[in-house]
């Protein structure tokens, strides 16, 4: 039903476009690739911005989930698309800064994309099960020194994987890769469940993924990585604990196109995003799930992503976490 509607709309738009002067971008619907599955943080974020963004663009946005391999399949599809601005991809911390930093054989690098914006930041938070005897980061670190501490993640090369190691490293655990056991699970939901069920000791993930567990008293937050405290999380910030460098550890969602995307198209996306982010309904919906809306221009987005990447890359190289093969 939805598809026939879309194609009918597409046909009408195409028909109009051929009549009108062809030059002005965009003159037809834009394909937006969501490289993660339905229901995930990226998907919800993308589908929430679709409406205000579509209004700003003035042409329909066709959302398509192209999933697999931690976002790599969809990202490759966008990388190989024509750089005409009609195929764009939603980028995410895992697929566009952690995984490129960790996986040697990833079929793309940051240079294969032109980042037009980052519009959403999710603070990271670390948490343990509510019935755990660990009550602070100090307890956790002390326990980790003894050994037998594990953390769950949504998979190898995800933000959760790197986050767990980065936090342990910042708190002075030597050789955190071997001292603390990483238990990869199948997706973010399973990672949180693993801590609830006692499979893993702690996890560090987007505060939005933990919010309901914290509100329900099932998980105990130990730390958040933003400069400001996060509403609903009774936990100190990384800076309070003297580790401001952990503020690099945040989740984000953005939009990118293939690397040869022309400047004028990138600039247009910058304008559209500004307009879309002014939509009150969009902002309130995203804030309801714990996100911070902060639209970056194409230049800011590029600097932000590369900055995060180089921090992660340095850590990966120092700890020997690079995945060859």
């Amino acid at each position, binding site marked *: 039903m939805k598809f026939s509607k879309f194609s009918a709309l597409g046909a009408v738009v195409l028909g109009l476009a051929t009549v009108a002067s062809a030059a002005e971008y965009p003159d037809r619907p834009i394909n937006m690739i969501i490289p993660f599955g339905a229901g995930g943080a990226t998907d919800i974020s993308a589908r929430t911005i679709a409406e205000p963004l579509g209004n700003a663009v003035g042409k329909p946005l066709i959302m398509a989930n192209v999933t697999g391999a931690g976002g790599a399949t969809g990202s490759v599809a966008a990388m190989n698309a024509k750089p005409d601005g009609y195929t764009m991809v939603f980028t995410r911390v895992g697929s566009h800064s952690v995984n490129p930093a960790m996986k040697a054989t990833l079929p793309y690098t940051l240079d294969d994309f032109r980042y037009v914006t980052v519009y959403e930041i999710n603070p990271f938070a670390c948490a343990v099960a509510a019935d755990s005897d660990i009550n602070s980061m100090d307890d956790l670190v002390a326990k980790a020194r003894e050994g037998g501490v594990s953390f769950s993640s949504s998979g*190898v090369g995800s933000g959760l994987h790197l986050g767990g190691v980065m936090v342990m490293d910042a708190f002075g655990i030597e050789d955190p890769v071997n001292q603390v056991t990483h*238990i990869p*699970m199948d997706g973010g939901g399973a990672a949180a469940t693993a801590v609830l069920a006692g499979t893993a000791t702690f996890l560090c993930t987007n505060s939005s993924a933990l919010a309901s567990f914290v*509100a329900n008293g099932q998980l105990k937050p130990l730390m958040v990585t933003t400069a400001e405290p996060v509403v609903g999380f009774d936990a100190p910030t990384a800076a309070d604990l003297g580790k401001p460098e952990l503020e690099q550890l945040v989740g984000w969602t953005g939009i990118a196109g293939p690397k040869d995307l022309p400047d004028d198209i990138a600039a247009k996306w910058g304008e559209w995003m500004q307009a879309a982010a002014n939509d009150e309904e969009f902002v309130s919906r995203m804030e309801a799930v714990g996100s911070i809306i902060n639209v970056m221009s194409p230049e800011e987005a590029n600097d932000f992503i590369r900055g995060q990447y180089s921090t992660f890359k340095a850590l990966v190289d120092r700890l020997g976490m690079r995945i060859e093969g």
Partner: protein
Amino acid sequence: MNFLDNIAAGLSLVGNLEAFAALFLGVLIGTIAGAIPGMSATMAVALTLPFTFSMEAITAILLLLGVYKGGIFGGSIPAILIKTPGTPASSATVLDGYPMAEKGQAGKALGMALWASCTADLISNLALILFAGWLASFALNFGPPEFFTLILFSLTIIAGVSGNSLLRGALSAMLGLLLATVGLDLVYGTNRFTFGDPNLMGGLNFIAVLIGLFAIPEVLSMVWEPKPHVGKTRSLGKNSVTFAEYRRCFKSIVRGSFIGVFLGSIPGIGAAPAAFLSYSEARRKSPVKENFGKGELEGVAASEAGNNGVAGATLIPLLALGIPGDVITAIIIGAFMVHGLQPGPMMFILNVDIIYGLFIGLIVSSVFLLMIGSVAIRGFKYVADIPRGVLFPGVLVLCIYGVFAVNNNIFDVGVMFVMGWVGFVMLRNDIPAAPFLIAFILGPLLENNFRQAMLMSGNSPDILFRGPITWFFWALTLLTMVAIVRAGIRATKDLKKKNI
């Protein structure tokens, strides 16, 4: 507040036309979407989600739940009529549903699918309302070692769906396990059998494998030997299920529903294994075992009871713990959060009216499913009347469209055709496809849970025997293995006697 107050509060919340209309619309959308091959229940729910943002919380969630339930039932329609499961959950329905359609009993198979679905749905909803707390705390006892033993036990289903030759079934299962290893290694993150192709990094798409294995070989057979089918149409047959038939299958339906409830309340397993497990249990208990796989009504009933039994039960971890059990409930959790609700234990205290509103809505949804389902059957069953020369090209087009739509990736269509040829060769050599599929679903779960358990214990196998749940499944596995070996020995003896 006591129980009656809660119900009253819930009623006042859903007791309006809007809520029921949303539920009705949801079941309708779901049934239609589920009936389109490749358009799974998951996609239907995901596509509906953005439309619910502006609704009242309870209306929005009822709409999504309606789509979910309708979608799971709708998937059985193409599974029976054209051997193409509309959703992965209905792949077990193909085993007996399609042979029934071949025999001219499409109407009967569809009717039984509907009655079994609605019964299982009702049982599942009641289980949610009555045992949510208890089942949820039980589900949290499932860590990787428990999962491993459960999946190991589930693999013994293969013996039940292997047909005449266990060896051929095992061969098929090995092939499924092998292909399930393609993709990224869970623990090391390295590429396995990807041959440098990024498309293979995500593994073989499940729907593409499913449709390739079941539907395409039929089309190929038709092309291979077109003559026997020329002009032949399958008659619809008696289009209703008699009460006597329903009563005959009732035991299997109830058993299947409970299997569904049990597996559904444990996050991370999903509806397809439940349907297969229920099917194999029904076959094991049946006095006419040999009819299974050749068009046995009870097989359809058991499969559909198994997968619909999951639908209500997946809400148990969702509401009681805030844990999504599968992709669909993950989307529904998103809908809760957009409306400022946080599923979990606190919701039973803070938003108890919504919880009871949902319960009432769920019970009503079973009735809606029955109504919409019977209308849908009446419409769709004429598909069985279309001459094969017209139907099969149409099926092929639907398959290609459906597989492409899952992931918007043309590579998946290629996977479907390659699997179609594999399935065709298997069909010609009497190698059953069902064990392949079960192994393909369960293989990664088995491997991942085993490796997670090993990570937990620092490579000590003791953890696989860490509690009563693991012991229970080890015992079940052992018993089933003994039964299979004994049945094999007996069959050989009988064969020898006949030869003498």
